[in-house]
């Protein structure tokens, strides 16, 4: 399981982290902010307050859900670029259920229902690309990518049309967003209320554990890897290749859908345009960096969650654009991908 990471000599990672840190510092100084102020703001945004820590853990949970799904599909040889669209679809489905739930229900009944709706929404969103891939060999990279744009459009459509999910228009100032989810659909808080850490963290932890067990110790996990290694060989073994591929990609979509559900089921409890907030892409980056290892997904998602939380404060307190975090993430992935050849040469 950890072979992917341990086989990579620390070199690629050291190089990547050094490059990312250097770029990050350059981006801070580029705005004219003193380095000490910038790094101070980043640190405060990560660990400074209970709210910062709670925020980081919530973000890590969303990233972990998307990245666990990505990894499951990746083990089956599929690259799911559609996290953004699947989060959107999951969020829409969860909102559909969440606004319709009776207020009187206990969260113990409403929340699982909302999350399940998110799973179904995301899985359905991934179904088209999955079927096209297994039946017609259409690249799932292109189709899931295009579905992201359709998903963003569908969110816009839902929140602009009163006949769909838009809250009733009472004045010219009524925002194009859904009505708030019923209290029974909202994720309960964990720990102190000022931290605002939600049950999404438990959901993500459960997903990581289940995925770890399934990929490591079950027949399904072995079959997925067999399909991922070689489709012709898996066929000769008599494995249901098409079904495994569809199941893997739909699971990836479903987990991203749950991530979408947790996003609408936390403050401010509404569906609105742009609620996916780049989590689909960041989750993809986590998955790629983790190199098919579920344990690595958990660790990297945690690190990225804190980075995202720190990045928000970097913008608020030090005036460094939040896109800096995205730049640092892409530098990481570019260096790790580029250094892969050094790894292969080193081991062969």
């Amino acid at each position: 399981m950890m072979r992917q990471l341990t086989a990579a000599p620390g070199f690629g990672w050291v190089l990547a982290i050094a490059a990312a840190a250097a770029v990050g510092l350059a981006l801070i100084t580029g705005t004219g902010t003193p380095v000490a102020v910038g790094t101070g703001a980043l640190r405060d945004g990560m660990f400074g307050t209970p709210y910062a820590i709670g925020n980081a853990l919530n973000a890590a949970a969303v990233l972990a859900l998307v990245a666990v799904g990505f990894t499951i599909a990746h083990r089956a040889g599929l690259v799911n670029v559609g996290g953004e669209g699947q989060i959107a679809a999951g969020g829409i489905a969860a909102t559909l259920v969440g606004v319709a739930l009776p207020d009187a229900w206990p969260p113990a009944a409403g929340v699982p229902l909302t999350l399940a709706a998110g799973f179904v929404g995301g899985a359905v969103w991934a179904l088209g690309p999955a079927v096209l891939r297994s039946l017609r060999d259409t690249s799932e990279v292109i189709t899931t990518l295009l579905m992201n744009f359709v998903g963003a459009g569908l969110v816009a459509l839902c929140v602009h049309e009163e006949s769909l999910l838009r809250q009733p228009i009472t004045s010219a100032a009524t925002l194009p967003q859904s009505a708030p989810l019923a209290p029974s659909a909202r994720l309960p808080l964990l720990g102190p209320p000022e931290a605002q850490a939600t049950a999404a963290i438990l959901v993500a932890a459960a997903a990581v554990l289940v995925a770890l067990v399934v990929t490591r110790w079950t027949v399904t996990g072995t079959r997925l890897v067999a399909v991922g290694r070689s489709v012709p060989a898996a066929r000769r073994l008599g494995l249901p290749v098409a079904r495994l591929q569809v199941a893997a990609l739909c699971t990836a979509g479903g987990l991203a859908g749950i991530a979408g559900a947790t996003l609408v089921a936390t403050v401010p409890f509404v569906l609105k345009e742009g609620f996916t907030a780049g989590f689909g892409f960041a989750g993809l980056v986590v998955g790629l960096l983790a190199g098919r290892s579920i344990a690595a997904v958990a660790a990297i998602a945690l690190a990225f969650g804190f980075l995202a939380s720190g990045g928000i404060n970097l913008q608020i307190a030090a005036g460094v654009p939040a896109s800096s975090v995205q730049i640092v993430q892409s530098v990481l992935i570019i260096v790790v991908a580029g250094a892969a050849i050094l790894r292969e040469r080193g081991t062969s």
Partner: protein
Amino acid sequence: MSALPELIDGGVRLAVPLLLASSGELVSERAGVLNLSVEGMMLTGAFAGAVGAAQTGDPVVGVACALVASGLVAVLQALLSVTLLADQIVTGIAVNALALGLTTYGARLYFTSGRDVGGFDEIALPGLSRIPVLGPALFEQSALAFAGLLLAGCLAVLFSRRTGIGLALTAIGEDAVSADRAGLPVRLVRFGAVLLTGVMAGLAGAQLALADIHAFTDNITAGAGYLAVVAVIAGQWRPWPTALACGFFGIAQALQFAAPTLGVEVPSALLIMLPYLLALAAVSGFARAGRSPSALTVPFVREARA
């Protein structure tokens, strides 16, 4: 302007950047390199073009800046996918994210007051632009668009399957190892093809920012680069069908602006999704995997592995 000419005019206007970008990507894919980073190259070109034009007041300088900047992105992509043999899809997506992050960051720092920049005005070709309906749509373009389209046409002829260089390109894209044994410079051609993609995508970005919108906005390309890649796939790696696909995507994008005048009452969000739905239909319906260059996305390594 009545509705139909407006739709055609808007469609052509939106198709031109797609066409420019896909003409370079077509060459690169036929050589076996898939650049999802066309999106990032276009975006970088649009940003650098806008900065250059705003800084000097001269749109030609803007275009030069766009070409240099998108060329640099292409060098990065070529280093990763040709020299370092890295995964083309992964690096393409990462390069796009880098371009989006950097241009958004740059826009925060540079375009602090206004975002409008000077640019190219449209030139009407005498005579041809008088043709009813199609004339104004096709023959009233910016000088940049005319030059870019001419260049795209030259590329299509130069690399057609009837020229030596076009055949070499096909050989490299179909079976790089055999092409290498036959003495073709595989790495060099592939590197050059990616650079060419960068140049054309840079022109496309400059066209978007300097001739079309006359401003830079965050994520101005908004997926146009991906549509250009899909147009190549839907066009079955042939110039005319690719151009046709670009035209379709352009018209589909223009519908959202023309729908009100056409008297169509459809939510705009639905029309925004339309080009991507068409693109999905195109890749899943038309593209049979057998027609794609066999070595597409396969990195070339000389030593045969047992």
